[in-house]
């Protein structure tokens, strides 16, 4: 296993473009700390974002995992190109001739994907912990370490998404087109949602339930938007008589669906590689 990771590491680390993208990704993850610096002091209006409660434990786990998940697009480019480049350089052929089995090849890619997701999760955990300790109103250990399921959801979400990228890279064999395929798939899911909503189901509930089975939508569902959970928004809702108290929890079945898709993408990548003549 270590050998497979080392193989992939050599390939990635010596590629300048990948290195730059990976670095910018982790810098961006850290940059969420800069949100704390948002501060307005215009006459009577005294606004300091960090004091609005976004860095309160345990809300910070929810907020930070939701925001940082957007940065995964940087790594998506790295992953898609690390798959597609193997085809365009024909190095995949050479790898197999040199004695890497097709299974090992896919495994080395998938392990890299899992490592990316894992490091990202640890990173977000550390950055959030530091931000929280500095700005949070609550500092009891039991509160700090509650709601950690958002980190699990974050990890699963990244792993699922990266596995999807990996599959797209193998399927399409060209980086640019594989990224295009991801965008196309997103549009396709939106299209299906529209059809379901207007032609098949009466209400939101059924549509949401069916859409929850689609890969990108399932990944999106893992971490719900955190903004309406802010106390400022909640009190605004109370004033205008709208109830913004949605269900924010991470559900086990949502995690299961994404894990299922991850397994499917990895298997399909393997099946595709196995069937193709190189």
């Amino acid at each position, binding site marked *: 296993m270590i050998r497979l990771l080392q*193989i992939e590491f*050599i390939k990635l680390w010596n*590629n300048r473009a990948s290195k730059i993208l990976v670095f910018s990704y982790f810098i961006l993850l850290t940059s969420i700390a800069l949100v704390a610096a948002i501060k307005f002091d215009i006459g009577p209006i005294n606004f300091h974002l960090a004091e609005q409660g976004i860095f309160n434990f345990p809300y910070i786990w929810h907020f930070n995992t939701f925001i940082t998940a957007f940065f995964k697009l940087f790594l998506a480019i790295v992953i898609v190109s690390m798959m597609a480049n193997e085809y365009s*350089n*024909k190095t995949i052929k050479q790898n197999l*001739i040199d*004695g890497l*089995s097709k299974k090992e090849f896919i495994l080395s890619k998938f392990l890299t994907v899992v490592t990316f997701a894992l490091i990202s999760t640890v990173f977000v955990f550390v950055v959030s912990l530091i931000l929280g300790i500095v700005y949070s109103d609550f500092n009891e250990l039991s509160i700090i370490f509650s709601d950690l399921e958002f980190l699990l959801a974050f990890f699963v979400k990244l792993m699922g998404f990266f596995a999807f990228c990996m599959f797209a890279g193998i399927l399409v064999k060209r980086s640019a087109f594989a990224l295009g395929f991801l965008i196309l798939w997103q549009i396709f899911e939106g299209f299906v949602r529209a059809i379901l909503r207007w032609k098949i189901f009466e209400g939101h509930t059924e549509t949401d339930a069916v859409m929850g089975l689609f890969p990108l939508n399932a990944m999106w569902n893992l971490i719900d938007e955190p903004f309406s959970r802010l106390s400022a928004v909640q009190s605004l809702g109370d004033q205008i008589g709208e109830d913004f108290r949605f269900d924010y929890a991470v559900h086990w079945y949502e995690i299961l669906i994404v894990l299922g898709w991850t397994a499917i993408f990895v298997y399909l990548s393997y099946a595709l590689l196995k069937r193709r003549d*190189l």
Partner: protein
Amino acid sequence: MEKILTVQNLTKKFGHLTAVNDLSFTIEKGNVYGILGPNGSGKSTTLGIVLNVVNRTKGEFSWFNGNTSTHEALKKVGAIIERPNFYPYMTAAQNLKLVCKIKEVSTDKVDEKLELVGLLDRKNSKFKTYSLGMKQRLAIASALLNDPEILILDEPTNGLDPQGIHQIREIIKKIAAQGTTILLASHLLDEVEKVCSHVVILRKGVKLYSGRVDGMLASHGFFELKSKDNGALEAYLKTNASFGEIKLENGLLTAFLKEELDPGTLNKLLLDKGIILSHLVKRKESLEEQFLELTKNQSN
């Protein structure tokens, strides 16, 4: 003899096209093999199948008596297929270290093999800056990293300039001299003739011959003869039962043997008949002549 590779009834179809048709042969340790055949005869497809990159339609193959899985066996094989494939953004040394990781061998030999192919002074240049000849030599270095039991080369001199071709051939000869089994696929007959002891000949995916180079045609060779009186010479040869076909070309008689006959005996026989030779050579058919003969017979 220790068997390195056994191929049995291998068939590969690409849609309607049958690229390899019911092919069987065996590669034994210590020999230098050539796979010969015109372009599109299934050479590369066959190699692709045994190297795990092309899926077979039917048939079996086994490495090292079938004791290991294909990908484990490939770690003991060095192979170059068509174009050299490396990571363009990595240096020669980095690329070779990656191959070492895949083959699970130590990286000690990287410099030694780069030295062998004459690339040591360019080891820290990126692969994309290499010329085709250098890329091909790097591929050979890469194939040798694990001191393989068998070296497989598919058209190693394709697209190279004469100097590059010469360099590659020298390297192949050097490796063959060390006793490494070599399998060389090529459509260049003189290339195969220079280094190979055994050949497998393919045409349109069908095996025409496999075995020793000199046993390809059941032939005893031929004499090239010249005399002042070619007419008398030809008349005599026609009466001699040892000879078959006799051709006269540019004043040179070519007489094909039906049975073994050594040149000294022939010379004495002719001298006794008062025919004095000004030219006497006994030759075997070149591989090219044998190959053309064989493919011609089969097409009839």
